[in-house]
């Protein structure tokens, strides 16, 4: 069984920044990051449905996942 989640990418991750992705049931955010080919090092803040989340959080159908690279200073 697969789930559909929506992915929003920010800053230099922006290629195809809003996309719908199919993942297998039971996948975590970490699995999604791997599937997207994004290096773990490039993940700063991860939010699911606009709430800060961890890489170990399990995904649900329809989730909106935002991935923001590490940012600091300015």
């Amino acid at each position, binding site marked *: 069984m697969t789930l559909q989640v929506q992915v*929003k990418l*920010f*800053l*230099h991750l922006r290629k195809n920044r809003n996309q719908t992705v199919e993942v297998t049931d039971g996948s975590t955010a970490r699995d999604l990051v791997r599937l997207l080919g994004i*290096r*773990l*090092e*490039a*993940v*700063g*803040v*991860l*939010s699911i449905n*606009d*709430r*800060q989340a*961890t*890489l170990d959080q399990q995904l649900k159908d329809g989730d909106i996942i*935002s991935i*923001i*690279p*590490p*940012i*600091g*200073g*300015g």
Partner: protein
Amino acid sequence: MPYGYNGRVLHVNLTDASWEVEEPGEVWYRTYVGGSSLAAYYLLKNIKAGIDPLSEENVLVFACSVVTGAPLSGFSRYTVAAKSPLTGGFGEAEAGGYFGPELKFAGFDAIVFYGRASKPAYLWLHDGDVEICDAANLWGKDNWETLEGLREELGDKRIRVASIGPAGERLIPFACVQNDLEHFNGRAGMGAVMGSKNLKAVAVRGKQKLEMADPDSVKEIRHWHNERFKVHPPNVGLSKVGTSGLVKGLNQAGILPTHNFKYGVFNGVDKIDAEAYHATIFHSSSTCYSCAVKCKRRVALEDDAYPLDPRFGGAEYESLGCLGSLLDIDNLPAIARANQVCNLMGLDAISTGCVVAFAMECFEHGILTTEDTGGKALEFGDADAMLWLIEEMVNQRGIGKILSQGVKKAAAAIGRGADKYAFHIKGSELPVHDGRGKTGMAMGYALSATADHVETPHDTAFAANVTNLLPLGILEPVQPLDTNAAKARYFSLGQKAWGINNCYGICNFCSVPIHAMTFTRLVEAIKAITGWETSLFEILRVSERSNVMARMFNNREGFSPADDRVIRRWHEPMPDGPLKGQRIDPEEFQAAIEMYYEISGWDKDGKPTPGKLIDLNLEWLIEENDATGTGETVSSSA
């Protein structure tokens, strides 16, 4: 000559226009190194507690480090430090560009200014020579006119100039020092201290090459470092869009300060983010000495209302926030124009934006009315009101004169409950990073001697992985929203790691711990430049020593644990966005601060213990510690 540095510190007495050169030995250089650390040494040695920061008794330091000017990306920065007229405590601010390296090439590692010139003066350093020159014809000029005037007078287009604008001359306590019109020692009012000394500018030019202990290794590290910028995630974004990229990212994370720090999400973000910036006002990229990142932006716009000149600097993230989202302003040309006015006049854009936000919120609540402003409405979102108020502050007119003292003093002068909306820590306005979304940053604001953020960990960079922090023994991801003992431990280590950069004069955007440099290679770089058999242990101790010296300075000025706090709004639930409901619990925060004291070897009064001072080779400060600490609070936060 030693490797990497000159071994020469210039002491200038402006009162009698005399100077002398000190040649400290290697042990001293290896202990105090440069930047904020070297500056703290001279401030502690030469400033008596309780002096007026704008009197001739203040001491002003320009400090490079032992590695400033090495041909590596980011090794360009220098510190300007003095007792701050904004906080009454330790004041420091760093800037990049070309001035710091040029000062080294001119034969000096640092300059210490004493006294006050009887009339406007500038210092001219060239190839080891020192001249104190008349600046009467430059007084009253903006920073661009000053730079051009000095280039013409000295007959050299390649001089580098650190100067103040009219804001510094008029002693506005958040006046900045700038070099080349796009690099700023922004915080803590160092421009006002220069102004109080009648010191308009420091011009430098030098052709002396700094000798590297191991030039082949420096070259190899440079190649590795510059290649890594192309693939290391945070640097890829910086090279592409500069710090403007942070606007959208922080907004998405719910921590883009908006409406005077009330909200963390700005509805107009799409109009001020990196995409809008590069589609409308972007002119070209710029950089600092020897740096491959090229994060600086230049802007241009032919427009009657908001003309933008590429020579006068592009808005960085802090300006986009402080002059944009913090004021609910989404007019990007107006924000960039306000930033250029600050640059030319010599105002710190962070404090300037915060002061305007304070005024707008006072107006919103009827504390300020058109009666106070001479008929001008100061409503959130009104870009022209912002520009008007900046001009009034620079020109010291009406409400502008009151507000130009900073939010703490302005609130006291206005009364009527204005202090409820005056957000400052230790008297300093805040950069735009909301502590509710990264509590380590909140601890940093509270514990920084200057209440700034550049020596403070950004928790959000390490919420998913801590690869870059592993050499510090931080092995688990950081929880940005937690306030507990684990956060105090992380903060303590992170603060030391970030603090390295201000001591060694290295740019955060090139260095540890977020950006492309690694701890291992940084140690190798310092060793290759200086020839010192150094280690991560030693450079972390330099950073800790610097922090403790700044703390000692503040303690003897009467600061106490009551000043180690954050703003009221961060203890209140975030009203909207991804962090809706999030707040910093005051008791948890206090416990974390006290845990930090314990971890650091400080007592319950926030004073480093004699043992800690001995540990850091600072036994000369033990007597100072015994003489201070009345517990009296000199500052409080709204």
